């Protein structure tokens, strides 16, 4: 199956006074068309920096120093700024955690939507206004006329996030990157937004990269998952495969330590702390906390291994672990 986006060996480093922070260090995954692909990880995992790298908006002192990002037969890392601008917002859009920060409080919703539409398409003002209304309907906002006339601060958090999504859809993008879009929202509102995303995928064939640290969201919304830790990928597979037969000890550890709302489970904590990215552990970055680590794990970094034969559903999976063949990871 052709991918919408393929990230290969991405490396983005931050050159700080304290040292070189290897925020994203050889990350690879691919997003299939019309799917929701989750990037899951804790703080320091590199998921946000990955998103920034795709859109080439990595803040200083960061720089992408290696790898390829293939989108529509072009390597995004080789494009000039002018070409990237044609991609941002039009072919690939971004929505972020806090819609309050991304919407300008000085302009009405209509103004902002119209501006986004006119920048990303060839429509004139009148056509843009009509499209703005349609976008609000697409994101299931009731009473769009009122919302068009409102200012962001007059809307609730959930509404603002919908408006942000509407604006991201202004240029009919092929791929939407959503960075923790529901973290700042209440759980009932979050459910609405996630439902909306599923709808966009189903009705419009939109591909979405969903960045989150919430395993519940991943399980309920995503089709495929890439699990990240300390700037590296642990494994990448369909959601069912990752949750029911994980190949990487970190995934297993995470699943065993997360409390569930549907039953009381004995929480098995992961010892230790997330490593410092300036001076990460030698070899596999997870090895200090891994119950299955052996000598090799502290010496050599694991490489990409295909495990398609272990994929129950989508036929593809990959893992970065020296011992994945011999470990049988239970998640009961």
């Amino acid at each position, binding site marked *: 199956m052709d991918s919408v986006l393929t990230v290969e060996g991405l490396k983005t480093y931050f050159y700080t006074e304290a040292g070189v922070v290897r925020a994203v260090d050889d990350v690879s995954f691919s997003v299939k068309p019309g799917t929701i692909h989750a990037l899951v990880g804790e703080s320091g995992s590199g998921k946000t920096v990955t998103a920034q790298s795709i859109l080439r908006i990595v803040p200083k002192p960061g720089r992408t120093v290696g790898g390829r990002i293939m989108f529509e037969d072009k390597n995004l890392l080789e494009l000039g700024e002018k070409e990237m601008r044609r991609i941002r917002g039009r072919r690939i859009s971004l929505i972020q955690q806090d819609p309050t920060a991304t919407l300008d409080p000085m302009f009405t919703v209509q103004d902002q939507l119209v501006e986004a539409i006119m920048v990303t398409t060839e429509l004139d003002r009148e056509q843009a206004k009509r499209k703005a209304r349609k976008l609000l309907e697409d994101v299931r906002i009731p009473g769009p006329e009122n919302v068009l006339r409102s200012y962001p601060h007059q809307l609730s958090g959930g509404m603002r996030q919908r408006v942000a999504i509407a604006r991201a859809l202004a240029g009919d993008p092929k791929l939407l990157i959503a960075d923790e879009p529901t973290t700042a929202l209440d759980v009932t509102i979050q459910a609405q937004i996630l439902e909306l995303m599923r709808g966009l995928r189903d009705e419009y064939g939109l591909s979405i990269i969903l960045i989150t640290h919430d395993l519940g969201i991943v399980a309920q919304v995503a089709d495929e998952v890439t699990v990240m830790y300390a700037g590296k990928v642990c494994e990448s597979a369909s959601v069912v495969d990752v949750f029911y037969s994980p190949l990487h000890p970190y995934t297993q550890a995470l699943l065993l330590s997360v409390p569930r709302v549907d039953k009381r489970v004995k929480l098995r904590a992961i010892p*230790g*702390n997330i490593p410092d990215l300036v001076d990460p*552990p030698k070899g596999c970055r997870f090895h*200090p*906390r891994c119950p299955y680590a052996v000598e090799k794990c502290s010496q050599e970094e694991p490489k990409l291994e295909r495990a398609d034969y272990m994929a129950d559903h989508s036929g593809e999976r990959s893992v970065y672990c020296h011992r994945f063949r011999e470990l049988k990871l239970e998640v009961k």
Partner: protein
Amino acid sequence: MATQTVRRRSASQFAVALRRFRRSKAGLTGLGMLVFMSIVAALGPRIAPYNVNSNNLLLEGETDIAPTWLKPPLFHNWAFPFGTTVGGLDVFSGVLVSLHVDMIIGVGAALFAMALAILVGLVSGFYGRVVDTVLMRITELFIVFPALLFLLLLSRLLAGRLTGVETILFYIIIIGVFSWATNARLIRGEVLRVKSLEFIESEKALGASTSRIVFRHILPNVLAQVVVLTSFTVATSILTEVALFFLGFGSGNILSLGEIMYLNFPYMDVEWWSELFPGISVVILVLAFNLLGDGLSDALNPKLRE
């Protein structure tokens, strides 16, 4: 896997700030200038080649020394590197001898002003409500007051009657009295900011008394701002003092850089060096404290705190 190092660099806020200060070019420059000026000021009266009498500015044993011209780039006469005045003053000696006066008045006034400002700012910010309203209105009164006019008046009325040491104290107090208000407002703002931080409430939940909270928790966290403000206040105090003296409202019995500039002002077109060198000294002093303040601000800026 947590590494435990035996000897670690201290990570107290103070040590962290010190490290940051060392990286601040402005701060280091200011500090360097300050150290230099302090040494000069301290040694000044001893190393001045000629005696200076503040009353009649005559060199001992000689009268009516002809004005000596400095011919740039060569000094005409190295015996008088800054030239002399028609009144017989060796400008170089004059500067050396009077530097410490400006510094003492400047620093003294700033310390006095800050002490008042901390008191008012802490009480006002912490207690709020009525106390805050009352104190802030008083503070505003002082801010709005035409300080310079009042200073000139006070100076003219009272200063002449005091001895040398008393005079310096006098200037410290009156300049300090008109400098504390703005700082009090700023400190109050900082107190309000710290007060709203969660850990203050958790101190209350622990059962800490009010005085403990104010002195052990709020004050240390406000100190950063205070230190920065002090440096800038010294700069403004020096400028105020120089202004007072330069305008001729000095007490007449102490010699400061401003006084030298005042006494020689009438002859400025003939002996411009008698204004220039004291003036440059003032500039260096004030600049030093400003740069130091900048450096301190960089070092202590909360945005950069880890």
